[in-house]
């Protein structure tokens, strides 16, 4: 049997390491008064920590901390890496569950009186652990470099900067400069993945060692004799309780992450934007508190409230002089902790309620959500090396505008773009190109300086027609780019007039025959524009009189598409 082989191998390992004593010591821990579901919180916290370590390492395998890469790499994890949304979601949900379980742990310890002598130091290391967890939450929130992380974290560093005497220096050091940038991210990253984990694990080792030294604090009202009689070992019953609690926690997290498709990722951080930032739920009470302290008092509240809360918690074991752990004998400590928690919960709920009633905020949230969707959809094409908000250049209208500015605005005017001096204009004005108003003005006077007047392409005569006929011709020309709001009958009349007015002598409609004037099928559509950009001097367009250069080899297909999309969008521009 394989068991024999395994046993031999384990015996060998035992003789070389003595590991069985270690396992024994871990599992055979004596629990006075027996196992209890009330003791599961510490183990659940350790389990969530394990989840944070695993998912954190996974995230680090795809994340790049710099102002130019942070957002793009997180968007890549969230939307492109296999199950990236799940891994990131588990890390984020784990953070929330960590804080929640920490609070439950705190309540259990308080209610059972486990902070009392001789466990004061253990209680203090627990408080330090809680502080480290909050520092984790704060530093992790910034790392995606999205709008909410960027703006919400500004509040924290600004408050830090308002600390008396050393504030400004501290803030500069933490940020790595007077404002947020690359160093802020590398600093926060170093804290989040090296300093804080090392601190946490060190404190946790002490915390668990002290716990093992003093053992559990059983529920009040049981005699020493009874506790001894019902004593049990950690394995298997307590471990089983712990595992069930972990399983419930894990199932809840997985369900939550699948339901929400992981953690939200906002639009890339944009220092120029206005953003209505809110912290994560566990900082909401503090956020709400700040609303009541105007002006200079705000700093007092922001730094004072956590200091007072922390001070009370630190002092708790020393305040509690009761003879027993019975809650009735410990009204003050219980009132302080539970009252404080209730107050914080109340403040947090108030913040939620106020936001729910605040229409402006709700609108901002909606707008931010849409902006995030747009940015993330554009990020699927890859983000330019500038990173962050450069993702918007993937939008053909935005990218096309920049390309137009660079390659076309030397000759063509378009809205605010183009040559300032009239003499530098060497092509038609493309403001609202192919809209009804543009077409009408063009047909009335094609050789005006706003159209072909400054070019060698002059041959088209102003259309001689009644106002009604002109409207019909405009409608027909307008219909060529297939807009949604065409007056079909008017356009059909225009099509008739096109031949009656002999326009067809120069303008071909089959897209093949070479005529004097440019081909009209698909006029001003993206495809038509791309062809024109590639071969303006083709007989299908302006022929050899054209002074416009070919962009076939100057721009890539993608760039040509973007310029065309930008110009085509002029039709519907306001």
């Amino acid at each position, binding site marked *: 049997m394989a068991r024999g082989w395994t046993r031999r191998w384990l015996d060998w390992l035992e003789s070389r390491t003595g590991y069985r004593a270690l396992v024994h010591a871990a599992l055979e821990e004596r629990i006075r008064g027996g196992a209890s579901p009330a003791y599961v919180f510490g183990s659940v916290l350790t389990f969530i920590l394990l989840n944070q370590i695993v998912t954190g390492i996974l995230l680090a395998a795809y994340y790049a901390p710099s102002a130019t890469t942070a957002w793009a*790499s997180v968007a*890549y994890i969230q939307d492109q*890496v296999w199950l990236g949304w799940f*891994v990131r979601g588990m890390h984020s949900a784990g953070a929330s569950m960590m804080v929640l379980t920490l609070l439950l742990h705190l309540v259990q310890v308080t209610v059972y009186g486990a902070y009392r002598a001789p466990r004061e130091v253990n209680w203090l290391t627990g408080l330090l652990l809680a502080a480290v967890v909050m520092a984790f939450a704060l530093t992790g929130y910034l790392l995606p470099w999205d709008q909410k992380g960027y703006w919400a974290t500004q509040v924290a560093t600004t408050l830090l900067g308002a600390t008396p005497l050393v504030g400004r220096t501290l803030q500069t050091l933490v940020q790595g400069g007077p404002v947020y940038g690359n160093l802020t991210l590398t600093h926060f990253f170093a804290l989040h993945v090296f300093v804080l984990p090392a601190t946490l694990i060190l404190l946790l080792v002490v915390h668990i060692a002290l716990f093992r030294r003093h053992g559990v604090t059983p529920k009040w009202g049981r005699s020493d004799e009874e506790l001894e009689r019902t004593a049990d070992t950690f394995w298997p019953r307590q*471990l089983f309780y712990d595992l069930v609690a972990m399983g419930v926690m894990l199932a809840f997290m997985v369900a939550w992450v699948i339901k929400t498709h992981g953690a939200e990722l906002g639009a890339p951080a944009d220092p120029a934007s206005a953003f209505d930032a809110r912290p994560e739920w566990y900082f909401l009470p503090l956020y709400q508190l700040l609303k009541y302290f105007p002006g200079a008092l705000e700093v007092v509240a922001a730094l004072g409230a956590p200091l007072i809360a922390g001070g009370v918690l630190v002092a708790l074991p020393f305040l509690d002089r009761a003879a027993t752990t019975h809650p009735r004998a410990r009204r003050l400590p219980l009132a302080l902790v539970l009252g404080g928690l209730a107050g914080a919960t109340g403040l947090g709920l108030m913040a939620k309620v106020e936001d729910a009633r605040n229409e402006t905020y709700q609108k901002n949230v909606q707008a931010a959500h849409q902006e995030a969707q747009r940015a993330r959809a554009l990020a699927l094409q890859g983000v*330019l090396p500038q990173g962050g908000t450069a993702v918007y250049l993937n939008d053909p209208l935005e990218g096309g505008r920049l390309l137009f500015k660079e390659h076309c605005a030397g000759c063509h005017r378009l809205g605010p773009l183009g040559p300032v001096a009239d003499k530098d204009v060497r092509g038609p004005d493309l403001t609202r190109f192919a809209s009804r108003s543009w077409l009408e003005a063009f047909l009335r006077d094609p050789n005006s300086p706003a159209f072909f007047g400054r070019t060698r392409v002059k041959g088209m005569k102003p259309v001689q027609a009644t106002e009604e006929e002109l409207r019909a011709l405009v409608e027909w020309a307008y219909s060529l780019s297939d807009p949604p709001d065409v007056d079909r009958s008017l356009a059909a009349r225009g099509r008739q007039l096109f031949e009656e007015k002999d326009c067809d002598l120069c303008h071909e409609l089959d897209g093949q025959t070479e005529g004097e004037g440019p081909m009209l099928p698909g006029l001003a559509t993206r495809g038509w524009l791309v062809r024109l950009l590639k071969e303006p001097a083709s007989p299908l367009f302006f022929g050899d009189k054209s002074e416009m250069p070919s962009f076939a080899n100057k721009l890539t297909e993608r760039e040509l598409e973007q310029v065309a999309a930008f110009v085509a969008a002029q039709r519907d521009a306001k």
Partner: protein
Amino acid sequence: MMQRRTLLKRLAGLLMGAMGAVLATPAVLYLLDPLRRLRGKQPGVPALPVARLDQLPDLDRGEAPLRQSVVARDVRDAWTRFPEVRQGSVWVYRRGDQVFCLSTVCPHAGCSVDYDEQQRRFVCPCHRSTFSLDGKRQDGPSPRDMDSLEVQVRQGQVFCRYQRFRLATASKEAI
């Protein structure tokens, strides 16, 4: 009592296994993502523009070859899209009607091959390998001819498929 303990142990083992699987499965798939991305993608070599045909020097008329850098456009690297990435350099020229595009990388040790206008031949400055105007090996340690690249001419534009080849081997193997 014993039975109950055994049941607890079994259940505990089952729970641990299940939780481990829930955490480990997505983790493994997540780490395999680069492999998934590779699948179904033919790593073809794109033809990149290097010069205009009418700019090409004709070596048969005594002109010197053109040294051009080959620039790839819109290169994806995970989340980043680089508008331009320099791939390497080529010697590009004509001899009569034939268009040549030779990698500047010396097949011997990877130095950059120069053109010697006096001698009218290609010379590697590192170990003095020399090559004819067609890139054929003449003297020196180079184990093979200069690496020629596939050329296309479209609408007056010369394109070449830039590749790198294994160094110091007699045969030309793309890498």
